[in-house]
């Protein structure tokens, strides 16, 4: 490893101010700090720091997505890998351009966006749309706000929302029937043109026509849907890991799912023939995925714990309403984006109450 470090030290001047490639400094720095932990030391007290940094923090989110990635690979085959590669390439380009322009480092947050985005794509989506969507999401959803930490919206969801509005036909026509054969499609490349992969409607779309897919199938994941969203088991496995690391807040997840379940139960109770059963709804579509991996994004959610409870409630309730009372089959994307908008307001309210209480202290 010493050799590697010496090599980095040798090429460093090329990327520093005055060097030939100084424009690419953010890229160099990202690689250097990926390989070796930074050399900075503390200047003032506290003289020691927690080992957790943003790289680790974001890595935890990526690790928690591994079960979903594997499930996606199993059900939809090698094409998923192509989607991931395109997503990272396109997103990283935008990120790098902005890092250079802003003279800041490349933010680790992007690496989560880059994998979240493929997981919420329909499996047969054209690759150019993946590139366009992720670039749009990173640009509009994040960079114009000033980068990770300052963004209002979840970039992956902004990208998906954009595609859904700009290309509704391609988005809703790109579903694939998941693999049914033993061994899945781990070694196959399947897109819309393959004969064995008939484009089918998702469970939520079918439900609008009064047809309910079995909950057990949705739990395992062999139903049509976005690549990472279909398998409830995989989501739960990764999601619970995420909550255990404390990177994602359990409060948000519990609140989202609980408010969703309560409202869905009320509807079911009122008109059992019109609304689906609660457990069915919980497993259908992107709800679980959104609840575990999108609402828990710390940047775009509220900071305070009270705010998190309210935030989850807004998202859960909105999802039920959109799903059951509008023309849209899926409501999670819009619900979470709405949640992103109200998150700062919720925090403001919590702070206002807290500051009033603090006023007389001390």
């Amino acid at each position, binding site marked *: *490893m010493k050799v*590697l*470090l010496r090599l980095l030290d040798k090429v460093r001047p090329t990327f520093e101010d005055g060097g030939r490639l100084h424009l690419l400094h953010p890229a160099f720095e990202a690689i250097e*700090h*990926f*390989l*070796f*932990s*930074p*050399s*900075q*030391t*503390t*200047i*003032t*007290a*506290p*003289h*020691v*720091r*927690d*080992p*957790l*940094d*943003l*790289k*680790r*923090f974001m*890595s*935890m989110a990526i690790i928690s997505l591994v079960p979903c990635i594997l499930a996606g690979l199993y059900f939809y085959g090698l094409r998923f890998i192509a989607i991931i590669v395109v997503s990272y390439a396109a997103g990283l380009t935008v990120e790098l351009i902005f890092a250079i322009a802003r003279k800041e*480092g490349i*933010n*680790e*947050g992007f690496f989560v966006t880059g994998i979240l985005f493929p997981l919420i794509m329909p499996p047969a989506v054209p690759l150019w749309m993946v590139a366009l969507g992720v670039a749009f999401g990173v640009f509009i959803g994040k960079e114009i706000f*000033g*980068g*990770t*930490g*300052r963004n209002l919206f979840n970039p992956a969801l902004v990208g998906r929302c954009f595609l859904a509005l700009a290309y509704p036909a391609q988005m809703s026509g790109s579903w694939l029937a998941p693999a049914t054969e033993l061994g899945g499609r781990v070694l196959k490349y399947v897109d819309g043109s393959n004969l064995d992969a008939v484009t089918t409607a998702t469970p939520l779309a079918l439900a609008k026509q009064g047809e309910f897919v079995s909950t057990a199938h949705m739990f395992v994941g062999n139903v049509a849907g976005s690549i990472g969203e279909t398998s409830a088991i995989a989501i739960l496995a990764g999601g619970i890991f995420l909550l*255990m*690391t*404390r*990177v994602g*807040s359990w409060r948000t997840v519990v609140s989202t799912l609980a408010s969703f379940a309560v409202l869905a139960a009320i509807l079911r109770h009122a008109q059992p023939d019109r609304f689906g059963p609660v457990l069915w709804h919980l497993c259908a579509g992107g709800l679980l995925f959104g609840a575990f991996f999108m609402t828990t994004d*710390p*940047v775009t*959610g*509220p*900071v*305070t*714990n009270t705010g998190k409870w309210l935030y989850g409630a807004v998202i859960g309730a909105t999802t039920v309403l959109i799903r059951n009372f509008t023309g849209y089959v899926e409501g999670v994307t819009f619900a979470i984006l709405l949640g992103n908008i109200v998150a700062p307001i919720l925090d403001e309210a919590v*702070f206002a109450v*807290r*500051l009033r209480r*603090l*006023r*007389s*202290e*001390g």
Partner: protein
Amino acid sequence: MRFKGGYNVLFQGKPDGAVQTMPEPEKLYLPLRSERFHFSSLSVEEGQQVQAGDVLATDPDNFDIPLLAPRAGRVRLEQAENHIVLESIEGLPEHAELDGREILHAEQKAGTAAAKREALVRLGAWQFLYDAHTQALPDPTGTPQAVIVSTVSLEPFLVRGDVLLHRRLLNFTRGLEHLQSLLEYQPIYFAIPDIRSEFADLVRNHIRGYAWVKLLEIPLVYPYDDFAILARGLELSSGNGPVWAVRTEGVLAIDQALTLDRPCLTRTIAIGGTGVVSPSHIEVAPGYPLKAITDKYVFEPNPRIIDGGILTGKVFGDEALGIGTECRGITVLPELKEREFLGFARPGSDRGSFSACFLSSLTHRIRERLTTAMRGELRPCVSCNFCEEVCPAGISPHLIHKYLYRDLIEEAAQARVDLCVECGLCSYVCPSKIDLRAQFTEARELIEQDKREAREAKAREEAVEETSA
């Protein structure tokens, strides 16, 4: 009493309970500045011969608190900047500690409370008192609303109460009696550690029957021993008058001053940290040469030597030659030497974290070998809320940070940055490596300054009005 936040940083080099006596030095280097004091008004001349306990200098801004000569010797004023040097040191005459121990209780005759307080200032015991809210030196003639006494010391690594009290419990309880005799009816809150410990039992047995002492049990989580936190928890608001606070060493010094009429000329301090050979406690005179201590205890070739604990201490500057009068511990940390390959991707069974992102959180918490490494890049706040969860003061560090980032001092003041006790935990846990504590210290100073200026301006205005009227 309810506590919020708090967290114990565990790392190698915890001082053991032994107290070692350092050999008498040839010279003492007494710094003229310490955390709270600046002994700017000199009382001695170059070359003057002084006796142990003589006043070398006083601090005119702090009720003329004296800097005492810890040993007999000759004064040198020019040898080192900002220090008074004593050379040709003579050892202290051997007093048997025993003569004090035979006196079971504080004697009642010892004079009025005012005379006692004067004696405490003169004999160097008063400097162990703090105003709980401001950490400043309280006015010796003032009347507190209450007194907080604490034997708990939670910051790693400062001198521990149980070590100081070893075989001195009697002196301590007698010191408490003296303390009480300075007051009228104000309560003394006595903070003791975790009720289950053997030490707590011992202390409890000793003060049984002191009705004016109210026991306060505090969990052993940093920084619940902070006086401002305790005062707030006890609802002793600063609007109702000062709250005095004193630690174990202070009570022992009070006992020594009022029972034996003897100044406090030796300190027990902790020496610990990752870079120390055998972390323990040492008994030294103030002014003891720093180098003699580090030569004996530090093995690291390139250490950072800190005056105080790991979370709030200050680095000893190059010009620092001796132990200050307020020093409670020396912490030694190795500077970062090696950059870790793929550091962020390690499983992490060898490192402890506030988050649960490392393998060690599944097993047990380990004492880590910490260095001065920042362990990450500076990034914008990601709103993870860790800082708020860990903050003992109940404020929102990330919110204040965002205000300060945009230079909104006014808003930061409204978010009560002044309640921050500068424990440093927020900076410690922040994954974006933001120096929150340093920012808050700066903001608090700015706010204080604004207030002072506003007060002065008002006073000037009033003066003008009076003259014109």
